[in-house]
């Protein structure tokens, strides 16, 4: 039987994506199982962000299929091989299950922290306002910002903003969380507080896909690590093995820049 419990949380099959003449995803395939933390590393321009953005259909793949818990994302492929775009309502509903945290936070500057967190649960899922507020308080507690509920985003540090962004995504109770270089825009001393929150989430069993340049963090937190280059998966496997025993010249080259061993 095909219950959702047997399905991988995310299944990516032969996904292609070009921007004009530039081929960015060149036949990507991988699975992410329930509760797994997958880290994606790769050189700049290799297609990491594009792949991640395809996982909630902010970027629309040209060919191939993506499934979230077995349900096709964005397009349905018909028997004759042609595909039909899903309606906006269906796409929006699927995005509720896939939380995303951006490098640039993308908080809503015209709303305070609490309203940033409750807006989508209330307007999209119809959650009762009082309940959404309670939940926002709990999430802020969790990310260590309980006292900031009434602040506006512009009055927070980058690290605090990013933790609010994580809380905002979690408020939708997603099944998967996507992180796209969420510490890259932060001052070095603020990186730790965000990584701590992510680590805690991983330990709680959240399914996560993390694009990062923080190799040590990827090593410590992920269950599996994937190196992509020019839109293809070049190596993947146990993080320690991939990082300490790279097989391809491309990965050796890439890791050389970080010149550290990972333990």
């Amino acid at each position, binding site marked *: 039987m095909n219950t959702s419990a047997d399905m991988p949380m995310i299944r990516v099959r032969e996904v292609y994506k070009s921007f004009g003449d530039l081929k960015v995803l060149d036949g990507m395939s991988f699975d992410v199982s329930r509760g797994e933390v997958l880290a994606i590393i790769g050189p700049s321009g290799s297609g990491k962000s594009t792949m991640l953005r395809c996982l909630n259909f*902010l970027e629309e793949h040209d060919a191939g299929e993506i499934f979230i818990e077995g349900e096709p994302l964005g397009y349905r492929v018909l028997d004759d091989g042609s595909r039909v775009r899903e309606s*906006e309502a269906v796409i*929006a509903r699927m995005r509720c299950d*896939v939380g995303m945290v*951006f490098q*640039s936070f993308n908080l*809503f500057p015209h*709303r305070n922290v609490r309203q940033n967190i409750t807006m989508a649960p209330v*307007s*999209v899922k119809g959650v009762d306002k009082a309940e959404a507020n309670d939940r926002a308080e709990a999430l802020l507690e969790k990310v260590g910002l309980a006292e900031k509920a009434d602040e506006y985003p512009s009055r927070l540090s980058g690290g605090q903003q990013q933790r609010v962004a994580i809380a905002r995504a979690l408020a939708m109770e997603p099944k998967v969380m996507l992180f796209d270089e969420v510490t890259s825009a932060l001052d070095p001393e603020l990186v730790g507080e965000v990584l701590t929150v992510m680590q805690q989430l991983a330990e709680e069993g959240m399914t996560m896909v993390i694009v990062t340049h923080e190799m040590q963090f990827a090593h410590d937190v992920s269950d599996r690590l994937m190196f992509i280059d020019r839109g293809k998966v070049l190596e993947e496997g146990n993080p320690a093995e991939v990082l300490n025993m790279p097989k391809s010249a491309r990965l050796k080259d890439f890791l050389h820049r970080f010149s550290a061993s990972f333990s």
Partner: protein
Amino acid sequence: MDAILDFFGFAFIQSQLPRFWDGFRLTLAISGASMIGAVMWGLALVGPRMSGLPVVVVPIVAYIELVRNTPLLLQIYLFYFGLPLLGLPLSAFVCGVIAIASQHGAFLCEIYRAGIQSISRQQWEGALALGMTRRKAMRQVILPQAVLKVVPPIGNQLVILIKDTSLVSAIGIIELTLSGKMVIERSGASFEVFLFIAAAYLLLTTTFGVVLRIAENSLRARQ
């Protein structure tokens, strides 16, 4: 002192106040009606204008360019003399208001559009990633931010609108400007009268500017 007041025709202006008052009230009425019309018309246009559907976008762009790039006076004549030919003999007042609202609505549509487009793609993505439809994202995330940005340019446009109401004097509406002209024709006291009329417009536009500033600040405070 008396000599100075006399130089500005103070006593004379005072004697003509009832005429000016009628004109002033008409200018107020035309300004108010045209403003409401222009703001609504601009709102009605901006959705289709940004729909991305060529069958809708092309005619709207053509219309906007046409009314923005031809004289308003001409458009007032067109409505006033053209509509009766189409079997719609509307009053001069209504024709004037329609013409002004039509042109300024087109300008406002472009101002609204610029405001909406000034909100970054990241804001859209933040909203969509949370499962909002484009409609919800527009209403809850994009528009509230865009509104604040466009209040000042909308204000500028509406000040121009107030001044443009003087053009309906061309189709015989005795608003502020024409009431002045009629007084002049009778008395020949052109300098004093025009100065007085200018002051009346200035009063109108600055009052409006202050009201707008207050509205903007309260909007900002509420967000």
